[in-house]
């Protein structure tokens, strides 16, 4: 049971509202893209779900358990993991230590070593540099490490904030390939912040469009991509650019 439910959730930073009455249901094993212009509240939504920012209104449920108000470490124990924007890897720790930080919450101790090996199989470069300081990795390698680190908590739901940010297109492809493969292998629920509807359509999944802190549209990623393509053709600019 890892259905994710967001009901009428609001978040404010001081007096500035970041999210207003957002509702969203995500089924187990689903893949959902969150899109929208800068400042639409995409990161705030993810942070509210994993407990990194407090909600001022509404409730959030994971597998029927209420999470709003719990500290992030408790939410992680419910099977939620987050790969934040900018990755936030621990630069002074080694690659392998980064992978182990999140294993404290697991009950299946025996599986930890085999999971680490599995991550090294998925991301061979991490295996090669397992004893290196994570701060010395390239951006793409850090993104892979951040995903690997999240997986090591053995999550049911994984949220990834802008995996494509600052990475070369071929690296982004690689990151998505891995995410999809992992989702298939483990039955993960994936929530991904992605600005490009074209890329979301290629990967496939549902798309949720946020603007000004509320959900303004929702549907198949392919439909969004088509519409955006049309808009681009008419107005000569990418529709994802903030107006």
């Amino acid at each position, binding site marked *: 049971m890892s259905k994710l439910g967001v009901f009428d959730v609001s978040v404010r930073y001081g007096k500035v509202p970041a999210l207003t009455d957002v509702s969203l249901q995500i089924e187990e094993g689903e893949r959902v893209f969150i899109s929208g212009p800068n400042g639409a509240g995409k990161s705030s939504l993810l942070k509210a779900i*994993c*407990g*990194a920012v407090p909600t001022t209104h509404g409730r959030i449920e994971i597998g029927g358990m209420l999470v709003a108000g719990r*500290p*992030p*470490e408790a939410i*992680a*124990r419910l099977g939620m*993991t*987050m790969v*934040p924007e900018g990755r*936030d890897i*621990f*630069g*002074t*720790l080694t690659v392998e*230590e980064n992978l*182990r*930080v*999140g294993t*404290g*919450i697991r009950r299946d101790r025996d599986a930890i070593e085999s999971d680490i090996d599995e991550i090294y199989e998925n991301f061979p470069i991490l295996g090669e540099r397992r004893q290196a300081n994570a*701060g010395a990795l390239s951006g793409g390698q850090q993104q892979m490490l951040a995903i690997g*680190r*999240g997986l090591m*908590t053995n999550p049911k739901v994984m949220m990834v904030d802008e995996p494509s940010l600052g990475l070369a297109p071929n690296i982004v492809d690689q990151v998505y390939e891995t995410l999809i493969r992992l989702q298939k292998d483990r039955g993960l629920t994936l929530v991904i912040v992605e600005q490009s509807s074209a890329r979301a359509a290629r990967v496939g999944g549902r798309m949720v469009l946020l603007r000004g802190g509320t959900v303004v549209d929702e549907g198949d990623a392919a439909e969004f991509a088509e519409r955006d393509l049309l808009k681009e053709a008419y107005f000569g600019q990418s529709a994802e650019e903030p107006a």
Partner: protein
Amino acid sequence: MNAIPQLFFDAMSLGGIYAMAALGIALIFGVMNLVNFAHGEYIAFCVFALIVPSTDAVAVLFLGKAPALLLIPILLALGAAIAVASEFVVFRHMRKATPVAMMISSFALGFVIQNSLLLIYGSRPKAISLWPDLNKPVSVIGASVPLLQIIVILATLVVVVALALLLKKTKIGLEMRAAAENFTMARLLGVRANVVITGAFALSGALAAAVAMIMVTQTGVADIRMGGQIMLVAFIATVIGGLGSLPGAVAAGFLIGAASVILQAFLPLDARPFRDAFLYTFVIVILLVRPQGLFAAHSAKPRV
């Protein structure tokens, strides 16, 4: 000519004390950005825990009467206990406060602890004789060195190595290092904030207890003001070492110990009373040249 080895032992043993005190401060700063001004008073608290509460000038040993094998773990536990208690009573309620507010409240807490000691034990320094045999000199490579100095140096090494192993090899150690670098991210990965912070305070308090035992054996005095001076030096060591960097704190502790011994030995006689003034000036100069500290941690750099 045995002046040089003599100086070396003096510098190493003084530096060892400073390094341990600095480690206690750096550990907590690393985990929660708290500049803990109460740390010196943890040391004083542990010293006074050795003697029977009274305002008399001569101290009667209380805990201090216990055999070393019993005394050492009890005192370490007591140091850990007061540190953890102070976190529980004060700092836990300030998780959302600014580092400046936390720093000031630790300053106030230190004052409360110091004056509570004053209330119970009076303000006069007391003679106290813990393990007097350790001050007997032994001969090492041509220098006559009190046994205690050698023990201090060895104890510092043991403490530093043990702490390094704890941080490097255990689960709580890994979580502490992760939390020190990015507290929120560590929590998102399920690291329990309260466990890590309590652990850091316990370790820090135990280090204060170790410093207390060494200082009391060395000076033979229990003084309610003894925490202040060592705390100031320890702070300066953590800043020079690069706030939050544990190896930096140790290295800077030894550096200040060495500088202090060298100044004492080579300053002209008239200028010796001003030794600490020279020392602190030297420290401000170091900070001017390298504001981020001599051994800055990655995380200590401001993120722009």
